[in-house]
C-alpha cells in the first residue's frame, strides 16, 4: 500500500509538471497498453508530447532539472527520462509518428484514484504508434500493437476506419491490413 501511494504521488506530480508545458500530453507505452489489453508488468510510465518547439523544450528542461532528475539535459532529442520520487517517467515524441491535432483530439481520459484524470492515447492511435515503432525496433512492438487491436475489438471499442486512415498517414498501412486479418 505504501509503495502504491508513493507511485501515485510521483505519477500525480509528473502529470502536473508535464502538463504545465505540454497540455497535449497522453499516456503511451505499456502502461497505456494495459488499459486496453490483458495487463503485463511494466517499469515506467511514458508520455507522448510535442517536443518540436525548441524554446519550450529548453524551458521545460530548465524547470524540471531544478526540481527532479532529467536525462539528457540538452535540447534536440526525442526522448527524455525524468526521475520523480524514484519513479521513471519518459517524455517522448517518436520521430516517425505523426502526433497531430486529430490524435490529440481523440485522446481518452482515465481516472486513477490518488492521481486524477490522465489523458491516454486512443487505442487506434496507440496501435498505430506501436506499428510505427516496430519498423525500427522489431516484432515486440508489433505484438503489442496486435494485442491492443484484438483486445479492443473484444471490448467492441476499436474504430477500424480511423485506424487504417492513421496507418496510411504514417506509411504503415500494409502491416495494419495484415494485423486486422482473422
Amino acid at each position, binding site marked *: 500500500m505504501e*509503495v502504491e501511494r508513493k507511485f501515485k504521488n510521483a505519477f500525480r506530480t509528473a502529470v502536473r509538471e508535464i502538463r504545465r508545458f505540454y497540455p497535449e500530453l497522453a499516456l503511451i507505452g505499456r*502502461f497505456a497498453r494495459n488499459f486496453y489489453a490483458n*495487463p503485463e*508488468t511494466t517499469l515506467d510510465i511514458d508520455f507522448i508530447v510535442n517536443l518540436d518547439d525548441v524554446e519550450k523544450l529548453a524551458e521545460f528542461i530548465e524547470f524540471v532539472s531544478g526540481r527532479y532528475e532529467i536525462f539528457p539535459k540538452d535540447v534536440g532529442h526525442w526522448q527524455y527520462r525524468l526521475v520523480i520520487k524514484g519513479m521513471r517517467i519518459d517524455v517522448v515524441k517518436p520521430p516517425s509518428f505523426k502526433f497531430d491535432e486529430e490524435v490529440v483530439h481523440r485522446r481518452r481520459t482515465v481516472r486513477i484514484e490518488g492521481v486524477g484524470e490522465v489523458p491516454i492515447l486512443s487505442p487506434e492511435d496507440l496501435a498505430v504508434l506501436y506499428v510505427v515503432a516496430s519498423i525500427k525496433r522489431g516484432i515486440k512492438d508489433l505484438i503489442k500493437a*496486435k494485442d491492443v487491436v484484438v483486445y479492443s475489438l*473484444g471490448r467492441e471499442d476499436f474504430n477500424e476506419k480511423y485506424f487504417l486512415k492513421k496507418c496510411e498517414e504514417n506509411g504503415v498501412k500494409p502491416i495494419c491490413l495484415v494485423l486486422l486479418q482473422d
Partner: protein
Amino acid sequence: MYVTMWDKQSRRPRRFYLGRREEMKRWEELFKLAREYRVGKDEVRDYVDYFLDKETNLTKVEYVMLSLSLGVDLWKWSESSRTRSGQQLGR
C-alpha cells in the same frame, strides 16, 4: 520495394511502397509476425470477464497499477541481486 495487397478500405488491390530492398528481411519478419501471432478467443473472453471494468470499458485501474508496482519491484529485486552477485564475485 513494393507490396501489392487487398485494401479493405478502397475494396481493391493496391500497391504500397515499403522501403529499400535491403530492408526486405525485416519486412518479411514483421509480416510473418503480423500474420501468425494470435490472441485466442478464450484469452479475450477471460480478459473481458476478469480484468475489464464494465463501467469504463477499460481494464480495471487496480490491475493496471498492480502491473506497474510489480514491474518496479521485480526490477529493483533483479538490480539488487545483480549487485549482490557482483559483490560476491569481487570477493
